[in-house]
């Protein structure tokens, strides 16, 4: 009797070191311009080669502009990182979907949409939101640059096996409650460090009913409660999403893969180190009020009183002071200056459909600056093909080009100091979206409602009846 996580992990152990980590074989490795240059430099200094270049996939996303991508990148440091990646990938024979490539986009969006991400695999990337790929029943997690170098050099990393946690959410979500709300709710219950040391399996009706896009949103934010990663057992939803994707197995290989993939589930009676159970009916649209993703509440709630949260007084006061909020204030009605929809959390087609469902036939609030950033060129094309762009344009929004953008604000997409942003990304840390920026994390529906009304608004009051 083993868990899904055990099955995939154990199948990838090359060697177990006594009183040490496991040497884990890595099936797929994604790299980008920010966390790879020093790893390549290290490799070069050691005079080593990339062991399996065909297992590494490179993209440019963290540090790229989201307008005028056809022009040379202006910031010389950013341009240098992009050139370095291009040079390194060419030198070692690694596939690179750089700026302008029709497959370019955020690493955790393009992996799945091109079928590179598959059930039962081990997947790593020098980015903590690699946990996204767990939505397919893969073990996927973020690594540091030394580990990027290890994977390049040996296709392995050395990791102690994490403990196992299962989070079950039963029942049906109510109208206006979407996957982002589910994960923000979970993190608000477990706290930002509640799953540190664990790998989380999400189970129950809510996840069974969820689309692949939704599952990716959930697994993406596993790291925000400290977990190494999140995983969901693959099922028919997974298989039909995968079928026919560019790098997915075809023909006989597909049939064989499917037989294996169908074994990837937790056996009845398998034991987890920790379990949580939640009810879908307790979840409403969520929003964060503080400076870590665990500081979230139902949108109709108030900023909690200091004594009611798991945080010492100094830390809590510091967070509220940074946000310019006070204990007991209502979240509804708070002024919003910026709205950001995008990132590897909510930058997929379903997210733009949700956003459009609310802004359709309405107008953007004049004082709100909105950045609408698709996760990839493929998503961008879908937005156009499905007529979503027309809805956005009609409502006064413009569409930008793919990239991480204001999720980490390495490029020019920075929220100015002191301004309030409702953001569909994954982190509300101090300064994450620009020095002094104040972030409220929420779903695409909450973002749309804020963009239309200019204040924090319950999206359920704006749902169109279709």
């Amino acid at each position, binding site marked *: 009797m083993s868990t899904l996580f055990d099955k995939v992990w154990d199948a*990838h152990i*090359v*060697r177990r*070191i006594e*009183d*040490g*980590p496991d*040497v884990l*074989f890595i*099936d797929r490795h994604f790299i980008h311009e*920010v*966390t790879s*240059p*020093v790893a390549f*430099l*290290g490799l070069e*200094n050691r005079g*080593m080669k990339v062991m*399996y270049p*065909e*297992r590494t996939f490179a993209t440019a996303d*963290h*540090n790229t502009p989201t307008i005028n991508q056809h022009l040379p990148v202006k*910031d010389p*440091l950013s341009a*240098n990182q992009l050139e370095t990646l291009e040079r390194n990938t060419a030198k070692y024979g690694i596939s690179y979907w750089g700026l302008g490539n029709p497959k370019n986009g955020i690493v955790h969006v393009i992996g799945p949409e091109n079928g590179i991400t598959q059930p039962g695999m081990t997947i790593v990337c020098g*980015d*903590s939101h*690699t946990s996204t790929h767990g939505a397919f029943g893969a073990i996927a997690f*973020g*690594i*540091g*640059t*030394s*580990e990027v170098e*290890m994977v390049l050099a*040996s*296709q*392995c990393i*050395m990791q*102690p096996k*994490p403990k196992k946690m299962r989070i079950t959410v039963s029942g049906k979500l109510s109208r206006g409650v979407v996957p982002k709300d589910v994960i923000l709710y979970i993190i608000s219950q477990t706290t*930002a*460090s509640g799953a*540190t*040391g664990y790998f989380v399996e999400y189970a129950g009706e809510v996840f069974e009913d969820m689309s692949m896009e939704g599952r990716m949103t959930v697994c993406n934010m596993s790291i925000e409660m*400290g977990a190494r990663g999140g995983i969901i057992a693959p099922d028919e939803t997974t298989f039909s999403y995968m079928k026919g994707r560019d790098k997915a197995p075809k023909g006989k290989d597909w049939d064989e893969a499917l037989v294996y993939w169908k074994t990837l589930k937790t056996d009845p009676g398998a034991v987890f180190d920790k379990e949580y159970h939640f009810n879908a009916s307790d979840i409403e649209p969520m929003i964060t009020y503080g400076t870590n993703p665990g500081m979230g509440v139902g949108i109709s709630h108030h900023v909690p009183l200091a004594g009611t949260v798991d*945080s010492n007084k*100094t*830390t809590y006061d*510091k967070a509220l002071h940074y946000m310019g909020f006070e204990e007991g204030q209502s979240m509804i009605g708070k002024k919003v200056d910026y709205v950001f929809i995008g990132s590897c959390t909510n930058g997929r087609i379903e997210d733009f459909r949700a956003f459009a469902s609310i802004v359709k036939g309405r107008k953007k609030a004049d004082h709100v600056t909105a950045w609408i950033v698709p996760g990839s060129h493929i998503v961008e094309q879908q937005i156009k093909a499905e007529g979503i762009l027309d809805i956005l344009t009609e409502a006064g929004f413009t569409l930008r080009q793919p990239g991480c953008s204001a999720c*980490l*604000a*390495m490029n020019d997409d920075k929220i100015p*100091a002191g301004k309030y942003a409702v953001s569909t990304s994954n982190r509300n*840390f*101090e*300064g*994450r979206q620009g*020095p002094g920026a104040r972030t409220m994390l929420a779903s695409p529906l909450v973002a749309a409602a804020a963009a239309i009304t200019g204040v924090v608004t319950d999206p359920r009051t704006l749902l169109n009846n279709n």
Partner: protein
Amino acid sequence: MAYDKFTVLRSTAVPMPIENVDTDQIIPARFLKATERKGFGDNLFRDWRYHPDNSPKADFVLNNPTYSGKILVGGKNFGSGSSREHAAWAIYDYGFRCVISSFFADIFKNNSMNIGLLPVTVSEAFLDKIFRAIEADPKAEFEVSLPDQTVTILASGEKESFAITGYKKHNLMNGYDDIDFLHSMETEIRDFAQKHSL
């Protein structure tokens, strides 16, 4: 990259009793544009340390000459957030060799050990004692012994032991890294890869 071997460290410590110190605070994203590993210490805790006009914030602990040393002591859930190894590099480059907290985020902990920065996890109660010892005397010294796996408050002699795997301990004490080890396993890895075709 080679790093200094870690055996026994005796030093004063810099207190930062804030919880959930995330890697975006340790080193903000806009300083991640380098392609080499140098100079990250200058931007350690950039936005806590400097005003937007680059003048130092007098009330931030790194700007307070009362506190110094090679040990950084942080509140629980230290190093949460992004996987950027730059956070560990910045702390190391600034001159710290050890971070003590009651709880570390996983990736930060791994990254630190990979570059020779020792993360030491102690109990909440002991962490509190360390903070109080620094408060009582900013020049109070501490001893972190990797061979014995202990942290000692030298003024009072109170000590607590910490956990680390034998493998990592050996690496840190000798300045080895995982790549040396993995390289020695090349044939074994190639055999394994055969069974895991693309």
